[in-house]
């Protein structure tokens, strides 16, 4: 027998009883699987079930180790852009980022025979990049030291929303004085989906302080889990969440300015 809960109850159950079977989580897992496009077109069926996922990666590794060029090319196509973006979060120069990514690919080739599949291939490649970028960054002394990140940092103290948008006195103090306007109707919605907005968003990401940028790219752009990001950047989960929160809030603000026309050039 299946008990049906409304969405609020489902969310409640899912957040407090992670082991409980939940229709939402199952749906989310399915969605997640659909999003992961396989690099091996010949072996992946569109209706791949959960257990096939590691197998696919296993096949991919075998193909790579055997020297299958098509597989290597699809790997390049799939991750090169992501790696460039991620490298840009560590070193602020495009040409240096490109070099770091080249080094990363060579590192991938070197380590391929030793890779045991304890993490996903993506995380492993990202780890190689992070290490190369760190070494490079230290050499150029542009790397952000994470131990230096504390709650007293300027960019962590900054509120998520401009304080001027809240009421400053009265019964409704700290409630919206000028609430956000929905993006779901008319121009903002169309604009949100446009390519132009993607370009603007990339600029907004690049404008973030490096530590916020790294976490945002890994979590929201590349879809790594918080655990993976904490391990890669060697930060605590709380710290990761604070950085992510600041980064997301800043990007939402930038997007709001853009969609509502305040900062649009064209």
């Amino acid at each position, binding site marked *: 027998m299946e008990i049906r809960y409304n969405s609020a109850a489902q969310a*409640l159950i899912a957040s407090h009883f992670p082991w409980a079977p939940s229709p939402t989580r199952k749906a989310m897992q399915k969605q997640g699987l659909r999003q992961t496009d396989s690099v091996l077109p010949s072996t992946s069926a569109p209706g791949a079930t959960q257990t096939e996922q590691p197998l696919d990666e296993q096949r991919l590794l075998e193909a790579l180790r055997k020297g299958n060029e098509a597989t290597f090319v699809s790997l390049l196509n799939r991750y*090169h852009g992501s790696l460039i973006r991620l490298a840009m979060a560590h070193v602020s120069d495009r040409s240096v980022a490109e070099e770091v990514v080249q080094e990363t690919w060579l590192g991938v*080739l070197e380590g391929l025979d030793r890779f045991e599949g304890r993490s996903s291939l993506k995380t492993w490649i990202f780890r190689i990049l992070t290490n190369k970028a760190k070494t490079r960054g230290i050499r150029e002394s542009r790397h952000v030291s994470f131990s230096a990140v504390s709650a007293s940092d300027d960019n962590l103290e900054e509120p998520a929303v401009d304080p001027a948008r809240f009421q400053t006195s009265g019964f409704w103090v*700290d409630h919206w004085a000028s609430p956000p*306007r929905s*993006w779901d109707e008319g121009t903002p919605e169309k604009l949100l989906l446009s390519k132009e907005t993607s370009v603007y968003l990339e600029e907004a*990401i690049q404008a973030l302080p490096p530590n916020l940028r790294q976490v945002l790219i890994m979590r929201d752009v590349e879809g790594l889990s918080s655990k993976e990001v904490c391990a890669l950047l060697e930060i605590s989960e709380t710290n990761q*969440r604070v950085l992510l929160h600041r980064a997301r809030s800043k990007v*939402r603000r930038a997007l709001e300015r853009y969609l509502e026309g305040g900062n649009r050039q064209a």
Partner: protein
Amino acid sequence: MNREELRLHVIDTLAGKVTCKEFTEAITDYLEGKLSFLFWLRFQMHLGMCLGCRIYLRQMKQTINKLGHLPNDPIPPAVREELLQRFRTWKTK
């Protein structure tokens, strides 16, 4: 206490004094499922009553969704060729 004051008092008690400002600061913890049960409940109740915060939450989700669908730059053909050459060397090693 007049009717209006009583109404506001009841709302305030139920909502546990979650202000919109607090809401915007707790939003990532909420999305990450890291709120305590009590705060989660207050968060939900605030959400139910406050249109501004519902829009804010929706915008946050739209922002995250857009971030997850950014197109990647394609790999320049020259770089791809060079790396492929490296792959061939690696293969014969």
